[in-house]
């Protein structure tokens, strides 16, 4: 039995209604055994957390790290099969490089889990998966696969197929593909359930878990396309999140009423007519106030992983309560992905993904991670004097 006692830290457990308190965490065999004050565990190895904030490992719920590689003169794209508008069966794990240098940046910055997603060059881009950021083999690092059906609206699929003069080369064309594919998938599922044995279709099979509400659809959309996404998702009663969601402040009522989740980001893009017209990080507070589950995302490596702090910071700058912002990179994305039993908060039974932080990440600009633990293993430790 391997026991570690993290002693005397300031605990931000992210457990609902639990106040911040000074206390200890006992870790046993990679899981959190206990949180509380003055935990006694004589056989345990002790990690001194005095004066440090102790948080659950951060989660970035929308990343392409290991799928996009910018380390060469010409960038490598393993995230987009996009030979057809519907590539729903593509499994992102097979394109993922677990040795991507960005993963080290991620866990050194306290990001311990991520949702790695294909896309967004076609309409049904493939299957996203959730994984830890430390390890040798992506299949071992994976927590859940598939974790979501990735869908994209707007300029990306439109440009892919516009260049080929094929459907969909317009936004209405994209909406058509979206409706049509869900209709086919529903008919396919109905046939299966009626025992009619339709010819096997891998793409339709990949959409079934979404139709059964077992996993969410992650729908890349901004501005008005958010209404399109909501309309179609409601018609097929799927769980879904709007990804990127620029311009959400214009659609607060529709978003709140639909019951969907929001993955907001990346911020920091220039504003121009169309999809980039409004990049309104102030929307995260408005949505959070209305009870919408909001996560902050970097879209890494488009924006780099360390910019997650800046994303938190911009939400703080726009008036979002600091502790609410912390939820947007921990428990909120965990709930969105149906992984709240394992990650996102410091509670007995959960994975021991724990970070020790000097200062307040996303508020104090010089706050920094001193130690990162994933599944009970210390994967990063910064010297306390530096």
């Amino acid at each position, binding site marked *: 039995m391997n026991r570690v006692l993290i002693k005397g830290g300031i605990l931000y457990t992210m457990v609902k209604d639990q106040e911040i308190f000074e206390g200890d965490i006992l870790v046993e065999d990679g899981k959190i055994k206990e949180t509380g004050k003055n935990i006694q565990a004589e056989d345990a190895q002790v990690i001194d957390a005095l004066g440090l904030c102790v948080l659950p490992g951060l989660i970035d719920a929308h990343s392409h790290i290991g799928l996009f590689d910018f*380390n060469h003169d010409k960038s490598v794209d393993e995230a987009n099969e996009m030979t057809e508008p519907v590539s729903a069966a593509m499994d992102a794990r097979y394109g993922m490089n677990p040795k991507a*240098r960005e993963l080290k940046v991620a866990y050194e910055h306290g990001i311990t889990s991520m949702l790695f997603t294909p896309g967004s060059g076609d309409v049904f881009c493939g299957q996203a998966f959730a994984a830890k950021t430390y390890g040798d083999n992506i299949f071992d690092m994976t927590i859940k696969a598939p974790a979501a059906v990735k869908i994209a609206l707007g300029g990306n699929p439109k440009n892919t197929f516009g260049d080929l003069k094929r459907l969909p080369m317009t936004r209405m064309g994209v909406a058509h593909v979206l409706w049509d594919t869900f209709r086919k998938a529903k008919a396919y599922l109905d046939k299966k359930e009626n025992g009619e044995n339709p010819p096997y279709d891998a793409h339709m099979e990949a959409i079934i878990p979404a139709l059964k509400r077992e996993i969410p659809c992650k729908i890349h959309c901004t501005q008005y396309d958010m209404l399109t996404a909501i309309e179609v998702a409601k018609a097929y009663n799927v769980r879904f999140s709007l990804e990127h969601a620029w311009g959400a402040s214009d659609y607060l009522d529709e978003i709140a009423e639909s019951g969907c989740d929001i993955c907001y980001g990346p911020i*920091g*893009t220039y504003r121009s*007519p169309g999809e980039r017209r409004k990049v309104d990080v102030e929307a995260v507070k408005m949505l959070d106030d209305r009870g919408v589950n909001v996560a902050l995302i970097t879209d890494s490596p488009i924006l*780099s992983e360390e910019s997650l702090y*800046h994303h*938190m910071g911009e939400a*703080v700058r726009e008036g979002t309560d600091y502790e609410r912002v912390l939820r947007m990179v921990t428990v909120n994305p965990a709930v969105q992905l149906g992984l709240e039993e394992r990650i996102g908060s410091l509670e007995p039974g959960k994975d021991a993904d724990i970070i020790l932080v000097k200062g307040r990440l996303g508020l104090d600009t010089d706050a*920094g991670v001193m130690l990162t633990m994933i599944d009970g293993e210390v994967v990063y430790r910064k010297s306390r004097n530096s």
Partner: protein
Amino acid sequence: MMYLIKNGTVHIGDGRVLPECDILTEGSRIKDVGRMLHAPGAEVIDASGCEVFPGFIDPVSGIGAMGIPSRYLDNNEYSEPVTPEMNLKYSIDPDEMNAQEFYKSGITAVGLAPTNSNLMGGQIAVCKTAPQKMGQRMVREHAGLKCSVTSAVKKSNEKTNGYPMTKMGIFHLFKETLREARCEEEEKRSERQRVITDVFDSQSMQVFCAASSKTEIDGLLHLMKDEKAVINLVDAFCFADSLEQIKEQKAGIVLGNVNEMSQIAKNGMDLGKLKELLENGNRVAFTNSNGGYSEGREVFLWSAIEAYRAGVAAEDVVKMMSLYPAEMLGIADRLGTIEAGKDADISVFTGHPVTTYAARVKYSMVNGEVIV
């Protein structure tokens, strides 16, 4: 019109910080800076508990000169690789600039610059970011010569039979372009050649050259070793790998968008090395752009924060956002610090934007006009 910005913590921009300090503006200029200023008739702006900064400057911005959504970007004249005579003033798109709401990040002026597609792309024009009459916004044209020795230059080789198609070709072209301009008799020089000799022989403006990898930075510094023109490396993501040479030649750095496309992971960047450059007297500034293309206003503060996180003192970072870019662009007589006689471009933040994210612009003043 006179304004009295009262009782703020005033960051002059040159490293000095004056607590409980007032600033008096008259018309478009700063009239006085000091404690307990009296100015009957001036409208009072209460800056108690606030941090007051000179307007920040991005010296090489594409935003405001791209002309999106036109088919061809207005700052990308890559019909041939050498076009130093292009004047970015003629590509200004004020609406594009207004849409960015630059003032929310404290940025009140940008140097409009060409992309990296040309070896010599054109001359930077400095423009205020606030939505005012165009006539009031231009600070200086011919403020810098934008060059590039990155692979992007290969894009401009269509008319030249594919040349340059390598780094060797790019540097060869650079050398030959300088030599040919200088060999031509003065009265026979073309406009293009005149710009080149003005810049490289008479130092009419500084050079801003995109150079990111170690190959590009070392090559450029080697080529410029005996040149008198002041060289600023733009993007410069691998600056720390060529530190001694940069120090020796006193080259400036305009650090590109740090948090984009894995620069830190890819280059193992150690931004802490900026401290050594500052101690050595090199100028350092930030730009929202990376590879010749700009991102949104937020990025500017993020790069500043990354430098601070890496150990650069907060007030040194402030210099990198205001005084140094003003000096690089030759506009320090008007912008870059809060001093009597300078343009009244001032941001009142609720906190120090380098040390805390909880810092919002409460008031923004450009040319002595209150924007918010």
